[in-house]
């Protein structure tokens, strides 16, 4: 029964889609209202179903018609309040509409779809609410006949009765497709739409048979019968139909004849006919059509008018058209699912037209200006074109913009179905439906968003009884909102459910081997929650069928990353979860940062760019460090992994020569300056690293050595440029040669031969016509095998610390750095410092040849280094820092110049070269030669009498010998120094072996052993074990001095027999401990 041409069918499909758009939400609202029916809404849905049915009858889409009809029946009863829209009924309707939609989208094959299930359910609904005597009418089919007795169509008795009951009149109208429709330049759809304004179409049929047999009665044309129900009175009805009065019949009972079951026109039969439309059945289609057409033509022949002939031909050609187009229709239909066409407002189109006109005008101006060589005009038209192009661009962009409602609108249904299935109660709140996004983005976020919403309902919201138990309202709340911010679109999905338990995620990640425990311990709560984005992760204890199956979140993230979006997740256990997504408005034109590496130009999308960093040459060695093989940069206290773009892409790097400004090939292999390793911090590292060093190290060395005179890097031009980029939550620094402008670029795809390179997101054409590649920040990180965990920067920080600690296991010391003269860096052990004060120089009093300052009601004696050591005098400042020490029971202050800074370093102290009174030695700290100040010596030199007193007052311990093993001369001197001040005899040994020998030599006198742990030859643990194992010395107490007292060490120490731990250079505590142990001995 193919009547429509391609255009008609497409219009029908488009219209039906429009009708279907809002149905879901309308139905849900109807459900919510329950008995309290909003008639407008029901009418809305009813009309939609009705229009679809009407058109379907016309197109021969029997299955669509049948289903729409059944839906309509149910809705009719809802409208007349015969049934109450319970959730079950709404569910059935929703499902039926789903199938209907599916059929509309795949209209070609709709007749092959199985709708029996829906029909049974829907009919069940209608029957259930009817009194018994009417039940029969539902399934009963009647023939409706013309007054002449010719049965023209069949209809359900129920429909007719129902319409009558509502006080409507039933009409049977005969249209002639040729005279009444085509001649009047209408389409069948127009007629249907028009009729639907004033009533309902119960049934419609095109009667091809009539053409063949009733040429006498119906001289020409193809009859189209419509069974129509309307409240319009019979008197005025013909004017509505716009046909002659004699073709409108009011249907009375005597026109209806019950039909025997075997005579019912089965939809199947129609289906078979229309099935021939399908491309698969094309041969049969070819056959079927000619037959029909030939018959038509034959029948038309007796009329013998050329005009008629033409019409039939026209008819025939339409039919043939259909047949032709049917071959390539499946592809059209497929496209239409992903919206191959787009609705654009006429206003916008007008604007585009205007702009296009402007552009043409400007071009004319430009051409004129060029031909007359008029520079001024050239300039003006250039500006004009610039303006018009930007406006045009914006307007064209807007045509691609679609409201996010397209995605959001499906969620009420999703949430409702899911909640129902899971036995939960969920309210969905949607905000910001009007926010617009590029069509491609709208399409691409649909799936990730669905996933997130389902997750929120499935895993987030608890069941009502659990919620009640937690004192929450039984109804969960899921909120979906969209808003603009900073040129991006933000989408938020929040729920008030149980939240995500970071600890559980961590436990699960560790169990799966995705994370090490050490790593986990360093993670912040947010990072723990972000674990959910790791591939292969599921949080639900019970994997449910509905959402995710646990493989979702990483896919969500990858999808959003592809769009240049950012996902951020925030959650509190018991309170809920908020997921924020940031998306760019469009993908076609993006603002980008242009950068140079070697001779190549690249673009980094601005969405991925966090900040630009320029490390001046002078700071390179301080701020860029190496952890293992990776370079890292210190950025506001965090370590940022660095990726050298040139290395990743294997480009020869360049730099601007500071001397002549020319571009030169870069010869450095490492950004982190190896020379900075003369910094003692890295000394041991280098030693231990030697074996693992790549062979090119030697070459590198050659470059460096001869150029020690002229430091290239002191030029600002050889500073290091870093683009700090983020791929999702993961940040890293991209080292580039040059940073250029920020530009808006047009993204163009790369050819298929370059698909294998994952470092690029596409290409663009620069102002000079050359191509520049757009970098894919995430792809680059992947290529360089940077991990993609949010905690990566912190982890590497930890790794760096650990690496340092490893080195520090030998001798890590806390020093207080200060300056004497402006260039003289000095240090004292932090352990002996009481505090630091800032004083005004004018407050210093000179009393009795000594400097003091009034302080806390007493006088604080002040010294300066130059009083004892040969150093420069203090510069003439208004303010000075005073480092306060406590010596021999008094406080003394050492005047120094700022800055004063405390550091933890490993130092090798040279106790010879710069040794002088007051200075115990020197070390290199932070690239400065640093004098290590011996504060005892200074104070003793200036005030020897203080120490005599103490010697007298506190020398009960005189003659007691302590054995002290320590490999570092600095510590040895320090500790020995203050032990001796206390009046002990100290025997110092350089390592465990040495100590053991001494112990054997002086076995009688030694009363206590102090030992360092890490020493060459024999370490502290071994020494202790040896002492404790020897019966001669087993009674000796062993105190270990260490810079780190980790649990592991303490345990190990306890095993070997260490009695106590003390932190090195914590003078007072150490002395107290020593005193304590020795007094015990005395009692013994």
């Amino acid at each position, binding site marked *: 029964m193919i009547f429509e041409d391609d255009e008609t069918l497409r219009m029908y499909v488009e219209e039906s889609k429009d009708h279907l758009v809002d149905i879901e939400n309308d139905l849900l609202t109807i459900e919510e209202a329950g008995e309290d029916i909003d008639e407008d809404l029901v009418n809305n849905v009813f009309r939609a179903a009705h229009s679809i049915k009407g058109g379907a009858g016309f197109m021969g889409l029997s299955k669509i018609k049948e289903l729409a009809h059944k839906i309509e029946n149910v809705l009719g009863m809802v409208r007349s309040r015969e049934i109450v829209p319970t959730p079950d009924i709404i569910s059935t309707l929703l499902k039926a509409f789903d199938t209907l939609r599916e059929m509309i989208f795949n209209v070609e094959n709709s007749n092959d779809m199985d709708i029996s299930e829906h029909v049974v359910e829907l009919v069940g609904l209608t029957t259930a609410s009817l009194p018994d005597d009417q039940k029969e009418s539902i399934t009963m089919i009647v023939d409706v006949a013309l007054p002449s007795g010719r049965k023209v169509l069949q209809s359900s008795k129920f429909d007719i009765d129902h319409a009558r009951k509502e006080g409507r009149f039933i009409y049977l109208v005969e249209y002639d497709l040729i005279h009444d429709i085509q001649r009047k330049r209408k389409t069948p759809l127009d007629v249907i739409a028009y009729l639907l304004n004033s009533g309902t179409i119960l049934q419609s049929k095109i009667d091809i048979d009539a053409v063949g047999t009733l040429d006498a009665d119906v001289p020409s044309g193809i009859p189209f019968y419509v069974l129509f129900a309307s409240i319009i009175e019979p008197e005025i009805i013909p004017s509505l139909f716009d046909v002659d009065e004699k073709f409108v019949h009011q249907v009375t009972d005597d026109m209806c004849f019950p039909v025997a079951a075997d005579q019912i026109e089965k939809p199947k039969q129609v289906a078979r006919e229309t099935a021939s439309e399908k491309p698969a059945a094309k041969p049969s289609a070819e056959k079927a059509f000619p037959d029909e057409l030939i018959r038509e033509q034959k029948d038309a022949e007796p009329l013998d008018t050329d005009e008629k002939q033409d019409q039939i031909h026209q008819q025939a050609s339409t039919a043939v058209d259909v047949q032709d187009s049917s071959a390539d229709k499946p592809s059209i239909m497929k496209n239409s699912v992903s919206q191959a066409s787009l609705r654009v407002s006429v206003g916008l189109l007008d604007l585009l037209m205007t702009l296009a006109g402007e552009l043409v005008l400007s071009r004319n101006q430009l051409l004129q200006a060029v031909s007359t060589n008029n520079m001024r005009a050239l300039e003006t038209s250039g500006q004009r074109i610039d303006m018009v192009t930007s406006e045009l661009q914006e307007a064209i962009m807007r045509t691609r913009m679609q409201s996010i409602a397209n995605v959001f609108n499906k969620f009420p249904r999703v949430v409702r179905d899911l909640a129902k299935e899971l036995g939960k109660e969920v309210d969905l709140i949607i905000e910001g439906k009007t926010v617009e996004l590029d069509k491609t983005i709208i399409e691409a976020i649909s799936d990730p968003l669905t996933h997130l919403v389902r997750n929120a309902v499935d895993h987030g919201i608890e069941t009502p009884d659990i919620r009640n138990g937690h004192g929450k309202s039984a109804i969960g709340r899921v909120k979906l909102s969209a808003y603009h911010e900073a040129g991006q679109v933000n989408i938020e999905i929040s729920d008030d459910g149980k939240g995500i338990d970071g600890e559980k995620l961590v436990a699960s990640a560790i169990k799966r081997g995705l994370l090490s425990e050490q790593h986990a311990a360093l993670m912040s709560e947010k990072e723990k929650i972000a674990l959910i984005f790791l591939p292969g992760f599921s949080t639900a204890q019970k994997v449910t069928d509905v959402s995710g199956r646990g493989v979702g979140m990483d896919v969500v993230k990858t999808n959003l990353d592809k769009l240049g979006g950012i996902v951020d997740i925030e959650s509190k256990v018991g309170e809920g979860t908020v997921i924020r997504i940031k998306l760019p408005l469009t993908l076609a034109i993006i603002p980008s940062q242009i950068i140079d590496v070697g001779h190549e130009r690249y673009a980094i999308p601005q969405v991925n760019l966090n900040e630009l960093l320029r490390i001046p040459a002078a700071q390179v060695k301080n701020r860029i460090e190496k952890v293992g093989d990776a370079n890292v940069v210190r950025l506001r206290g965090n370590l940022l992994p660095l990726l050298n773009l040139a290395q990743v892409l294997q480009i020869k790097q360049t730099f601007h020569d500071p001397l002549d400004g020319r571009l030169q090939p870069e010869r450095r292999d490492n950004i982190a300056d190896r020379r900075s390793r003369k910094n003692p911090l890295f000394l041991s590292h280098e030693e231990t690293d030697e074996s693992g060093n790549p062979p090119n190290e030697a070459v590198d060395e050659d470059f460096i050595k001869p150029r020690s005179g002229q430091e290239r890097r002191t030029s600002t031009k050889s500073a290091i440029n870093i683009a700090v980029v983020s791929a999702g939550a993961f940040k890293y620094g991209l080292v580039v040669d040059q940073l250029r402008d920020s530009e808006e670029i047009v993204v163009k795809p*790369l050819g298929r031969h370059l698909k*294998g390179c994952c470092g690029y997101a596409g290409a663009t054409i620069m102002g000079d016509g050359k191509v520049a590649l757009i970098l894919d920040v995430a792809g680059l990180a992947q290529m360089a095998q940077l991990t993609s965990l949010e905690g990566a920067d912190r982890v590497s920080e930890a790794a760096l610390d650990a690496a340092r600690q490893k080195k520090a296991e030998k001798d890590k010391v806390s020093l207080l750095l200060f300056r004497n003269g402006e260039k003289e860096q000095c240090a004292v052990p932090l352990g002996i410092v009481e505090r630091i004060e800032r004083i005004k120089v004018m407050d210093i009093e000179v009393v009795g040849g000594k400097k003091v300052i009034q302080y806390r009601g007493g006088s604080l004696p002040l010294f300066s280094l130059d009083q004892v050591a040969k150093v420069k005098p203090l510069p003439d400042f208004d303010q000075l820092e005073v480092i306060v020490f406590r010596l021999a029971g008094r406080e003394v202050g050492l005047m120094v110049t700022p800055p004063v800074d405390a550091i933890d370093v490993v130092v090798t102290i040279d106790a010879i070269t710069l040794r002088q009174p007051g200075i115990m030695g020197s070390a290199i700290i932070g690239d400065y030669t640093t004098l290590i100040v011996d504060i005892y010596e200074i104070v003793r030199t200036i005030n020897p009498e203080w120490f005599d007193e103490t010697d007298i007052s506190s020398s009960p311990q005189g003659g007691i010998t302590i054995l002290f093993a320590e490999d570092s001369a600095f510590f040895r001197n320090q500790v020995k120094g203050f032990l001796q001040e206390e009046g002990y005899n100290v025997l110092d040994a350089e390592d465990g072996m040495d100590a053991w020998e001494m112990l054997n030599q002086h076995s009688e006198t030694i009363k206590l052993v102090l030992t360092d742990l890490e020493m060459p030859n024999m370490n502290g643990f071994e020494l202790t074990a040896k002492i404790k194992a020897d019966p001669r010395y087993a009674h000796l107490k062993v105190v270990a001095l260490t810079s780190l007292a980790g649990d592991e060490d303490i345990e190990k120490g306890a095993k070997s027999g260490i009695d106590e731990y003390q932190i090195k250079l914590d003078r007072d505590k150490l002395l107290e401990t020593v005193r304590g142990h020795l007094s015990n001995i005395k009692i013994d």
Partner: protein
Amino acid sequence: MKERNQRKQNKIIELATFYIGDALCGIDILNIQEINRHLEVTWVPQAPEYVLGVLNLRGRIVTVVDLGKKLGLSPISPGKDNRNIIVDSRDEHIGFLVDRISDVMLAETDKIEPAPSNIGGVQGKYFKGVFKTENSLVGVLDINATLKDE
């Protein structure tokens, strides 16, 4: 039917010929979009070895292939006669960089003989056949085979 088949075989095609080193090759001219000397190619690091880079052809990004390398011959040596032959392959423009352009020849399809399995070191699978003229041999390139993804 048979006759028609034969006529089809006897179709005359125009071959645009060019040199890769000393080897003379030809492409059915209907496959060629244009021949130009846009040689401002942007290098693409990490790309397959035979890809020279990308090129802006009036707003389209064109992948430029060093045909010499692609065919396993010596790479194209830069010179003033270098040309880019832009062909259309699967809705994408691709440029073949060649040493220099030669004539357009008329060739009857049945005169194109199957390529020997090994033409001067060139991989035979890239060729549809060999066309013999009075004084030269032209290897007729199969564009799709040449540009097949690997």
